[in-house]
C-alpha cells in the first residue's frame, strides 16, 4: 500500500498549472519582465518606485549572499536564506506605513530591510551573540520568531490592541494602522496559525496574514500541508484569500497594499499567499539535494524576481548604467560593512545570562548571578 493511495492525485487537485500558481495567481509583471494588467489589483508605478524595488531587492539579496558566506566561514552559527523570496518580502515590506506593525518569522530579512532594521542586527541572532538585538518599538518590526506560527497569534492580539487604541477605521490615513503577520507554508498547519485566523475573524482584527508559500517546509513539499491552494484556507474562516505571484514585486506590493488598506479601514483580515520558491537550502545546515530535484530549481530560476524588474526597467529605458552601477556599489559597500561588522560583533558578557530574565530580578536569581560572578572572578584569578 503506498502513500499515494491515501491522498488524491495532487496533479488532479491542483490542476496542471500548479507549478505556475494557476489562473488565480495575481501577476503584474511576468517572468519575462512584461507588464500585465489585473482587473482587481492593477496600479501605476512611478519609475522611482520601480527603481526603489529593484534596489531593495538587490541589496536584500546581497545581505543574504554575504550572510551565507559568513556562515560558511564560521562567522555565523546558521543562516536562513531568502534567495528567491526577495520580491515577496520587498513587495510586502514596502506596502507598509510607518504606523503598521510587522510580526516576522526567522527569514524576513527583506522586510526588516524595508523597516530600517540594520542587517547587522539580524546577523547577531544567527551568530549567537543575542536573540535579536533590535528594539521592536524603533521600527514597528517585531523580533524574529522561531517557534513556527507563534507570532501569528501575537500579530492578531496586537491588531486587537490597535482596535482598542482607536487607530482602525477612523478615516485618517496618518492614524489608521494594521498588522502584518508573516509565516511559511509549513506553518499554516500549526494550530496557532489557524487559531489566529479564528480570533482575527471573530474580532474582525486589522491583520494581514502574509504566507510565503515557498513550496517547502524543510524537506516537506507544500502538498503535505494542504491539498488545495493555500490561499483558499481563508474562505473556511470567512475572510478573503488571495494568491499573488510572490516573485513579482509589483503584484505583491499591490495586493499587500490593498489588504493592509482594508484592515486599516476596519474591514478585517485577509490571507495573502505569496506564491514563490525557496531557491536555497532551508538553512545553511540543510542539504536539499536529499529531497528535491534540481530541475525544479532550474524551472524557478527562470522566474527570478530581480531579473524581471531589471528587464522591465531596461526595456522601458527607466534605468541607465549609472543607476545600475550605483546600486552595485551600494551592494558592495553593504557587503563589506556586513563582513567587517559581523566579525566585530562582540561576544556577549557571560554575566548577561542573568540580565533581563525579569523586569524585576528576584533575590534568588540575583544570588545566582552574584555567585556566578564570584566564581568567574575566582577562576580568573586562579588562571
Amino acid at each position: 500500500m503506498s502513500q499515494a493511495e491515501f491522498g488524491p492525485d495532487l496533479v488532479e487537485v491542483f490542476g496542471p498549472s500548479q507549478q505556475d500558481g494557476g489562473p488565480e495567481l495575481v501577476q503584474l509583471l511576468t517572468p519575462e519582465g512584461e507588464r500585465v494588467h489585473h482587473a482587481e489589483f492593477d496600479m501605476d508605478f512611478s519609475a522611482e518606485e520601480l527603481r526603489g524595488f529593484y534596489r531593495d531587492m538587490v541589496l536584500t539579496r546581497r545581505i543574504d549572499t554575504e550572510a551565507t558566506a559568513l556562515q560558511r566561514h564560521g562567522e555565523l552559527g546558521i543562516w536562513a536564506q531568502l534567495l528567491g523570496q526577495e520580491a515577496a518580502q520587498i513587495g510586502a515590506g514596502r506596502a507598509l506605513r510607518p504606523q503598521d506593525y510587522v510580526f516576522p518569522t526567522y527569514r524576513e530579512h527583506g522586510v526588516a530591510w524595508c523597516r530600517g532594521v540594520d542587517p547587522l542586527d539580524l546577523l547577531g541572532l544567527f551568530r549567537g551573540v543575542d536573540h535579536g538585538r533590535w528594539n521592536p518599538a524603533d521600527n514597528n518590526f517585531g523580533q524574529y520568531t522561531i517557534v513556527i506560527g507563534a507570532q501569528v497569534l501575537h500579530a492578531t492580539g496586537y491588531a486587537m490592541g490597535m482596535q482598542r487604541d482607536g487607530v482602525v477605521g477612523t478615516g485618517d490615513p496618518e492614524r489608521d494602522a494594521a498588522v502584518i503577520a508573516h509565516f511559511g507554508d509549513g506553518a499554516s498547519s500549526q494550530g496557532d496559525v489557524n487559531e489566529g485566523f479564528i480570533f482575527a475573524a471573530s474580532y474582525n482584527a486589522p491583520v494581514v496574514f502574509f504566507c510565503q508559500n515557498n513550496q517547502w517546509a524543510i524537506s516537506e513539499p507544500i502538498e503535505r500541508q494542504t491539498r488545495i491552494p493555500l490561499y483558499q484556507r481563508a474562505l473556511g474562516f470567512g475572510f478573503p484569500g488571495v494568491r499573488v505571484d510572490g516573485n513579482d514585486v509589483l503584484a505583491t506590493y499591490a495586493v499587500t497594499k490593498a489588504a493592509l488598506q482594508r484592515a486599516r479601514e476596519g474591514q478585517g483580515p485577509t490571507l495573502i499567499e505569496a506564491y514563490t520558491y525557496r531557491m536555497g537550502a532551508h538553512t545553511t545546515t540543510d542539504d536539499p539535494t536529499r529531497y528535491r530535484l534540481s530541475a525544479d530549481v532550474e524551472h524557478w530560476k527562470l522566474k527570478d524576481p530581480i531579473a524581471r524588474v531589471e528587464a522591465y526597467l531596461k526595456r522601458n529605458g527607466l534605468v541607465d548604467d549609472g543607476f545600475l552601477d550605483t546600486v552595485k556599489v551600494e551592494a558592495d559597500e553593504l557587503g563589506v560593512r556586513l563582513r567587517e561588522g559581523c566579525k566585530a560583533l562582540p561576544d556577549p558578557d557571560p554575566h548577561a545570562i542573568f540580565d533581563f530574565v525579569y523586569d524585576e530580578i528576584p533575590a534568588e536569581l540575583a544570588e545566582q548571578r552574584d555567585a556566578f560572578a564570584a566564581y568567574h572572578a575566582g577562576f580568573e584569578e586562579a588562571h
Partner: protein
Amino acid sequence: MATQKITLAKGLNMGLRKAMEDDPKVLVMGEDVGRLGGVFRITDGLQKDFGEDRVIDSPLAESGIVGTAVGMAMRGYRPVVEIQFDGFVYPAYDQIVCQVAKIHFRSKGNTKMPMVIRIPFGGGIGAVEHHSESPEAQFAHTPGLKVVACSNPVDGYWMLQQAIASDDPVIFLEPKRQYHADKAELDDSIAPEPLFTSRVVKAGTDLTLLAYGPTVKTAMKAAEAAATEGKSIEVIDLRTLSPLDMGPVLDSVRRTGRAVITHEAHVNLGMGAEVAARITEQCFYNLEAPVLRVGGFDTPYPPSRIEEDYLPDLDRVLDAVDRSLEF
C-alpha cells in the same frame, strides 16, 4: 470602603475591578468571562461595567487566548487571562513557556510582558477529569515566569492587584475549592505585604509546616490538632512559588530543626522537592530530620469519589508531622 466580610471569589472579583478602575490598560480575557462572569463568577459584573472591549469573551482556544494576550501586552495593554480550569492550561503551555516567559529576555528588556494568567487550581470539588489539577511546578520550573498562589480572601484581593501591577508575567493560582468556602474580613486601609513574600501564619517552635493555596487551611488545622497534643507547629504560607521566598522558611527551620511541606500536586518533582532540596542545602546542620513531603500521589488525579484519599489531608499531614518529630 469600610471593612467587609468577603469570600475568596469576592476578593478576587473586587481586586480585578479595582485594577480595572485604576488602569484603563487592564483587560480581562477568557472563555465565558463576559456575560456569564466566568464559570466561577470571578469576573461577575465586569463586562457590564467595563464593556466588551475590556472584558473579552474569547473563542474556545487557550493557545489563542494567551497568544493574542501576548500581542495585546506588546501593544501596551495589561491582559488578565482566565484559564477556565487548571487542566485546560496545557494547550497554552507552548505560548506560556516559549513566548510569555521569554520575550523580556529575548528582547533585552525592550518588550515587557505584564500579563497575569489566572488559573483556578486544585481538587476537592467533586469534578470530572482535568478539573482538579495542580500544575504549578510545570510553570515554576520555567525561568521568566513568576508563580504565586493565594490562599485566602484578603490575599486574593491584594495579590491579584499586585500581580496585575507587576511588569513581569505572573501565573496566578487560585484554590478553587476555597472560592466560596470561608469568609474573611477585608480592611483595605491596611497596606498589603509585597507580592513575592512568604508569610508565617502561625508561630511555633517544634516543626515548620509549609503550605500554599488550598493546603494552607489543612496545615492550620493540623497545627491546631497538634497543639492539643502539645506540639507547637509553625505554619508558613509560601504564597510565592517562583521566586521562592526562602528567608522566612530558613529562619523557621533553623529554629525548629524540622520541616514538612504539603501540596496537592504530585510529590515527584513537585514544589516540595525544590523546597526540601533548598532547606537541606541551607540548613544542613540544623535539620533533625529530612524534610518530609505530603502531596498528591504520583498517579493521575483519580475519580472524584476517592479524591479525598488522593489529596493530602489532615491525617496524612499529621502523620508526617509525627514521623518528623519522631525521626
